[in-house]
């Protein structure tokens, strides 16, 4: 072998036959190839999961059990009523009033956000009281949610002050609103829907639980996923949004998310901390914009 041949071989950046892709990455790329080929029906894998028959049966059993109990209690009352004409002294004399907290909660509900109040108890707060997040803040957060989903850039822009240091997902983007918008468009291109389920106060900020969902991430079996955001305000504008990474603490969920990012953006440099960051996110938005049409071509509904 001459020296030129040897030099070429030595310069091979991938020596031997290394397994450069993990199984998850291989699976994801196979899914991508199948989707582009039309082997996989995206509509089929994205359709909502029907309730389990077992659940229906359980429902039926519960209904029957309730009916039986109802009949038995009714019969017992019927047979025992002559002996109990006089009500016991401890019986409350008045009808039950609506709890004040419920009324307060309803009165404080400016949008649909509070109707879906947080089901999970945030790790950072233990309060179970009705939300006391200022109406103005809730309205702004609701506006954030709707403009995100509607892609209304002008409206979205007004929700951030130019001094915002971080974008909604804690992507490090130097607070450049244009970059934020570019990223948002990337998100929208993937038809990612943001649903803010509810907010609780956190000092002078608001801690909100949000769910991301959408056809593309569902097609990749990586959605919906839930995160929490801490919204900071300057007046009525959102000045700072920090993501509290819930899923990152679970290894499986963490990898699920990372796999997804790696699939849509193979060159992404993911750094997981208390949140997560993506290096050069400006390029990511553009890359997603390029990536999403491929799903359209693949027959995505």
């Amino acid at each position, binding site marked *: 072998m001459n020296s*030129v*041949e040897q030099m070429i071989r030595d310069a091979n950046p*991938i020596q031997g036959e290394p397994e*450069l892709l993990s199984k998850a990455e291989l699976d994801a*790329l196979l899914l991508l*190839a199948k989707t582009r080929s039309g082997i996989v029906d995206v509509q089929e894998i994205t359709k909502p999961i029907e309730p389990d028959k077992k659940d229906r049966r359980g429902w039926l059993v519960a209904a029957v059990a309730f009916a039986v109990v109802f009949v038995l209690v009714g019969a017992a009352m019927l047979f025992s009523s002559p002996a109990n004409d006089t009500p016991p002294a401890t019986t409350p004399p008045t009808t039950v009033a609506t709890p004040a907290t419920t009324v307060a909660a309803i009165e404080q509900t400016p949008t649909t956000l509070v109707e879906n109040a947080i089901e999970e108890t945030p790790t950072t707060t233990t309060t179970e009281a009705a939300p006391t997040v200022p109406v103005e803040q809730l309205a702004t957060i609701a506006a954030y949610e709707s403009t995100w989903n509607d892609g209304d850039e002008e409206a979205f822009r007004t929700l951030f002050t130019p001094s915002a240091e971080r974008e909604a997902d804690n992507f490090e983007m130097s607070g450049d609103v244009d970059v934020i918008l570019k990223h948002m468009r990337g998100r929208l291109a993937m038809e990612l829907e943001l649903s803010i389920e509810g907010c609780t106060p956190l000092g002078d900020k608001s801690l909100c639980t949000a769910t991301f969902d959408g056809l593309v991430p569902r097609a990749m079996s990586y959605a919906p996923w839930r995160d929490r955001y801490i919204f900071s305000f300057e007046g009525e504008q959102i000045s700072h949004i920090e993501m509290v990474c819930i899923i990152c603490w679970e290894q499986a969920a963490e990898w699920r998310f990372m796999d997804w990012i790696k699939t849509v953006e193979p060159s992404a440099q993911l750094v997981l901390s208390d949140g997560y960051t993506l290096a050069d996110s400006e390029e990511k938005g553009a890359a997603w914009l390029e990536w999403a049409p491929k799903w359209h071509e693949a027959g995505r509904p």
Partner: protein
Amino acid sequence: MREIATTEYENLYRSHAQVIYAYCLRRTTTDEARDAMADVFVVAWRRFDTIPSGDDALPWLYGVARNVLADKQRSARRRGKLFAKAVANFEATVPGPEAQIVRNSEHEAVVSALGRLPEKDREVLLLVEWEGLSRETVAEMMFVSRSAIDKRITRAHKRLAAVLGLMTQDVGTPPVTIEEGGEA
């Protein structure tokens, strides 16, 4: 019937995806390599009936990968640049001990010289030296005669040696001296 084809297709994918990805990764950036690899197997599905069986499937896939990359990298100049960039950035984008990355200034000089070769010559050379294909296989893959491949390789060697010679002033010895900071 479709299920059988799908199973065979998946087997084809699992047998060759890694090497096709490596092929793409040696020639372009990480994200484009993944995209190209997926596209190779899109073509494989569409042309599934025409894929040679057994060991001949891999050269066929290499051929598709070459066309897919050529399609993505429209101009030959861009391909040359991307090739050098892909190899240069490989360490940064694909970390991990399995990558077996050995980079030093000597290799960079070789890669740079490879990037300056005519694309057809470079491709033939790398299919043999990096992908480990026999010259006969490369000839079949490119629909040319074995002697044509021999000529291209000889020509590529000469050009490469000449380019490296310009850099090192000595074709017969390694191109970059230790004092330049090479790891040797």
